């Protein structure tokens, strides 16, 4: 009897949390389906329409949302790929070799995540203007390294540290070079970690707001800033912002679903000693 009661209470708590967690999203969905003239009505009944989505994806209203969307994909994927290329060897090296100042170096890398982006954004803006990086893909991918690189290096470092070095030592004695030992032995074994950390880094890059706000204007602008453009003008079009926001949730969501298999294993891997 008591057990039943506890179970029932747990279920009730979960339902409550479910409502709490999904309420904002439900609100956004409803908002995005409202016709423009019923936006500010507070009662619940309205005639749902997909016009909002049509407008957003049809690039009407003079806002090239589809381009922003593609921009977001390009700079986020670009940032993650660059961070992996640079960060995986860095993570491996820092996990395997201690040298003078290595801990300080790693801490410095982490410290890039401490300071709010706003503290550096003005000088960056000036530099980007001078260097011709303002409003370019290269500029965005580069600046997003501040977001993705520390994340990837620090998480992958613990993955590599959890691998016994004897595996690579065995490869060395099998006749492989250190580089081959890294690519053929160490790297395949941290694949789940790479999947998990790539997703996280992608989401962080995708969600970043301050850098594209200040360092892009039109050509390389991303969805986070782009979605807000619908609020400008004489009448804020909340329904369009809501539709744009919901569309921009789709890529991280799809990505998370496809690599879910790796994700659970990946995120718990570092914590549990096998």
């Amino acid at each position, binding site marked *: 009897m008591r057990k039943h009661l506890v179970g029932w209470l747990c279920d009730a708590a979960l339902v409550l949390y479910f409502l709490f967690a999904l309420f904002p999203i439900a609100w956004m969905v409803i908002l995005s389906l409202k016709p423009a003239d019923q936006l500010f009505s507070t009662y619940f009944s309205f005639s749902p329409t997909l016009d909002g989505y049509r407008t957003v994806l049809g690039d009407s209203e003079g806002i090239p949302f589809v381009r922003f969307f593609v921009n977001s994909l390009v700079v986020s994927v670009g940032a993650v790929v660059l961070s992996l290329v640079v960060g995986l060897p860095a993570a491996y090296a820092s996990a395997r070799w201690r040298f003078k100042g290595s801990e300080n170096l790693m801490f410095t890398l982490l410290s890039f995540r401490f300071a709010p982006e706003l503290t550096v954004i003005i000088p960056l803006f000036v530099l980007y203007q001078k260097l011709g990086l303002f409003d370019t893909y290269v500029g965005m991918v580069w600046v997003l390294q501040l977001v993705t690189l520390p994340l990837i290096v620090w998480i992958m470092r613990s993955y590599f540290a959890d691998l016994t070095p*004897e*595996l690579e030592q065995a490869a*060395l004695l099998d006749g492989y070079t250190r580089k081959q030992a890294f690519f053929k032995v160490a790297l395949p074994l941290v694949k789940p970690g790479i999947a998990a950390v790539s997703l996280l880094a992608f989401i962080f890059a995708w969600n970043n707001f301050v850098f594209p706000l200040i360092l892009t204007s039109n050509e390389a602008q991303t969805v986070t800033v782009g979605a807000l453009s619908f609020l400008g003008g004489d009448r804020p079009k909340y329904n369009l912002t809501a539709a744009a926001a919901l569309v921009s949730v789709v890529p991280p969501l799809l990505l998370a679903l496809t690599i879910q298999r790796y994700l659970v294993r990946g995120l718990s891997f570092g914590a549990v000693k096998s």
Partner: protein
Amino acid sequence: MIRLSGIRKTYGKTVALDELELEVREGEFFCLLGPSGAGKTTTLKTVAGLEQPDSGTVALGGEDMRGVEPYDRGVAMCFESYALYPHRSAYDNLASPLRSPRHRLPAAEARQRIGAIAELLGISGLLDRPVGQLSNGQRQRVALGRVLVRPARAFLLDEPLSHLDAKLRQQMRAELKAIGAVQHTTTLYVTHDSVEALALGDRIAVIREGRIVQTGTREEIWYRPHDTEVARAFGRPRINLLPGVVTERGVRSEGGVELPVRAPVAPGTDVLVGLRPRDIALHGGDGHELTGTVYVTEVLGRSVEVTVRLGTGEQRVSLVAPRADAARLRPDDPVRLVVRPENLLLFEADRPERPGRRIETQP
């Protein structure tokens, strides 16, 4: 062939290898015996080039190996942790050396070799399986196979039989030395099991706290152990070590026990007299006679371990006798033991800082 001289290796404040000297001859099967933490694995890794010594030199075939990368040293090593590649099948693990740039073989030839080695180690049926699905004993054999499958200047084997069950271990111990590759290749074999060392080693080195205490053939280690700890390490039941005092005629132990050992030691010195359980006879024969009473007997299959209280004191010795001789013994039965004076070993008394060294006896 393998020569380590003056090797010192420290990890922070811990000294792992302390001026270690070791020489393994060409084609020899050499056992390195010691308790865990003595520096056995570090020694192997130093030979392989996986650990860099703080000082001292490693030479393989007369060449100084300083600055030579592990993959250029041409040695194969079997890790105690197996170090199998968990994302690959047993076959791919065995094939790994044969696919590497340094030991590459044509695929067909590699397949043949792997087949032969797998047959030899009794893992032919497991080759398709990922190593994660193998038992520890099977993994250990795959790890050993990965070493034997390729030609090498030297094999470095780190406790390669430790995780096999008792029966398989005994069988593999017997077979290991018969394997052609092992016969022709210099092998440095690390173990903490003295039986394994005695059974396998052409020569044996005893390592303790990062130093080689004694190197020799099994006879030398058995009959002329460097100190009491080496003597205790070999032989089950363990050697009997009777404390005593040197007198004009020999050594007097507690309870009026006299032992005929002569050595150039001043009378009155505290010593330990070593008696191997198998060197004590229960019934007759030539030699020095000791009397005592049976304390306890324990049947070990075909033989019996008899513990005897010597003389009138509490001094006890163990001996191993054939079952037929000892079957009727009961506690407190009087017995007469015979020892041959040449089988007695004499040691300095143990001191807290170091075990007692052996003292050369005089006939």
